[in-house]
């Protein structure tokens, strides 16, 4: 209704290449900023802020994975392991050298990127399912290494406690303050990804995905770009791992097991491969799903089960619903939530007329 291209004439290339080329863009961004910076933190209960915080962290990870899987067409089942690399790098630096988050965060990202490039090297030779298995091996090797090398894992139970991040003496130690901390990184990740995918590098990633032979012939070094995709994607994963560590106040390998890799793949499949908005919607969806199921079960399930049985039922049902939804999306809308959103938007573009 308000979101109309009609009558918008672009007179410069930069206007034509803008991220959001409509005059209403200013208002949309302003309203979103108002909601997320002012209204939400003032009105929303601490418990729901904690859910939002988890969503912000998941957005960073999902964006990273989507760059690799959705845009470049490679696959990784080892992303949780890259997160753990970032998490333990940051935790070790924070605890042993007492470094602040603005050093440990990029350090964790860079370390994950380096490991990601190594795990991604098979992609130069193999594709698809074979690559999936190779990265799965990467996941298991990294998991095992962290768990069994006390120098990395900090010994007891392979977990390292870290202090909450602080800046200029201000400590982000409540859900409310962590909200701003994580919101900042989620926004940076979103804008960075939007820029990356519309730039020369992002175009080259899509070229590798769509036609690797033609990409090579027109001058894209596909090996370089495959590894670059692994590096960038793992950097995001590493940062995501560092954020988890600061959020929970502990680096623990159990947060980064194989199932988490699957969760993140689910996010981008459900949200939409090769789409920034899809990554965000997928991260929201997959983070909320178990919470919604739990709330539903607690209210409805107590009619049928005892409290002791409930814990089992909820975890089982969560996995079942998860699998069911992935299958549902692959069949009904392979392009995910992003596609659904675009369909709704294009319906309202000409509303109330039918054409």
């Amino acid at each position, binding site marked *: 209704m308000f979101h109309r291209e009609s009558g918008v004439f672009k007179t410069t*290339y*930069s206007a034509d*290449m803008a991220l959001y080329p409509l005059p209403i863009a200013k208002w949309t961004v302003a309203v979103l900023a108002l909601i997320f910076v002012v209204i939400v933190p003032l009105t929303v209960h601490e418990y729901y802020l904690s859910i939002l915080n988890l969503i912000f962290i998941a957005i960073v990870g999902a964006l990273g994975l989507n760059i690799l899987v959705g845009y470049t067409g490679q696959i990784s089942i080892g992303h949780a392991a890259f997160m753990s690399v970032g998490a333990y790098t940051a935790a070790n630096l924070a605890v042993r050298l007492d470094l602040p988050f603005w050093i440990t965060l990029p350090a964790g990202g860079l370390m994950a990127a380096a490991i990601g490039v190594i795990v991604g090297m098979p992609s130069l030779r193999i594709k698809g399912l074979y690559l999936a298995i190779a990265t799965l091996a990467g996941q298991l090797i990294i998991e095992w290494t962290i768990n069994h090398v006390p120098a990395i894992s900090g010994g007891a139970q392979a977990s390292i406690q870290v202090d909450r991040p602080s800046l200029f003496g201000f400590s982000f130690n409540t859900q409310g303050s962590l909200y701003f901390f994580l919101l900042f990184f989620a926004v940076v990740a979103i804008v*960075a990804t939007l*820029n*990356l995918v*519309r*730039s*020369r*590098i*992002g*175009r*080259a990633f*899509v*070229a590798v*995905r*769509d*036609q690797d*032979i*033609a*990409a*090579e*012939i*027109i*001058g*894209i*070094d*596909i090996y370089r770009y495959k590894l*670059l995709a692994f590096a*960038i994607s793992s950097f995001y994963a590493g940062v995501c791992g560092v954020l988890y560590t600061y959020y929970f106040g502990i680096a623990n390998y159990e947060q980064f097991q194989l199932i988490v890799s699957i969760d993140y793949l689910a996010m981008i499949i459900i949200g939409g491969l*090769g789409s920034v908005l899809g990554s965000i919607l997928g991260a929201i969806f997959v983070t909320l799903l178990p919470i919604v199921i739990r709330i539903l079960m607690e209210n409805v399930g107590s009619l049928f089960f005892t409290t002791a049985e409930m814990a089992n039922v909820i975890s089982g049902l969560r996995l079942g619903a998860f699998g069911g939804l992935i299958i549902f999306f692959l069949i009904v809308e392979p392009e995910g939530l992003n596609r659904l959103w675009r369909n709704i938007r294009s319906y309202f573009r000409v509303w109330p007329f039918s054409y």
Partner: protein
Amino acid sequence: MDDVSILGVATLSKKFGGVTAVQDVSLEVPRGGILSIIGPNGAGKTSLLNMISGFYKPDTGRVVLDGQNITQKKPSDIAALGIGRTFQNIALFSGLTVLDNLMLGRHVRMKAGVLSSVIYWGMAQKEDIAHREAIEEIIEFLKLQDLRKQPTAALAYGLRKRVELGRALANDPKVLLLDEPMGGMNQDEKEDMARYILDVNQERGVTVVLIEHDMGVVMDISDKVVVLDRGRCIATGTPDEVQRHRKVVEAYLGTSKSGGRV
């Protein structure tokens, strides 16, 4: 390498297992000219182009572009040195718009790295705009103005061929390798494409190497024709010379039982 030829191929051979795809082929592409490679199916024409563009590594022989030996270089480096290429089966990036496909054609001329791409505003944007101007020139040249923001997957066959030509041109190549640019086209589309190829050659000064099955087009627009048969070069010359060449007639039509004239 003399000034007359821009691209030289010397005794190039390639075997796949027991099959000899190309055997001892030598040819010189005249600077600023149009050279056509013809021959029956399986003669090794596409294999030859694949070796020139670096996609196959030849078993023997060498490829020289403008005095520089490019035989062992990577395809992406060869593209950067100025060889553009289109494909027999259209190989556009179907998930991207026409504009993005063309911008990708210019990838090697651009420099933005990861950091400046992520920040975008500033360097990467300036670069994108500067190159967009060159791309717009090609869009205008190929009359693709109304298709800029269309995903290439949705385009008609003839248009996709044209976009592919544009993508190859975007790189400002010295030599353009066209693999059956008119395959599967109707007469009107063929005439359009022939006109574009002539314009590319004359207005933009690009040397063209063309593989084509339509003899009418080949004989009309080529300066020089090379005929391949079963991996070997059997004739080279002007269109007229080649048409009368005995071996060429044999390759296309076979020999009569008396071994004489057809």
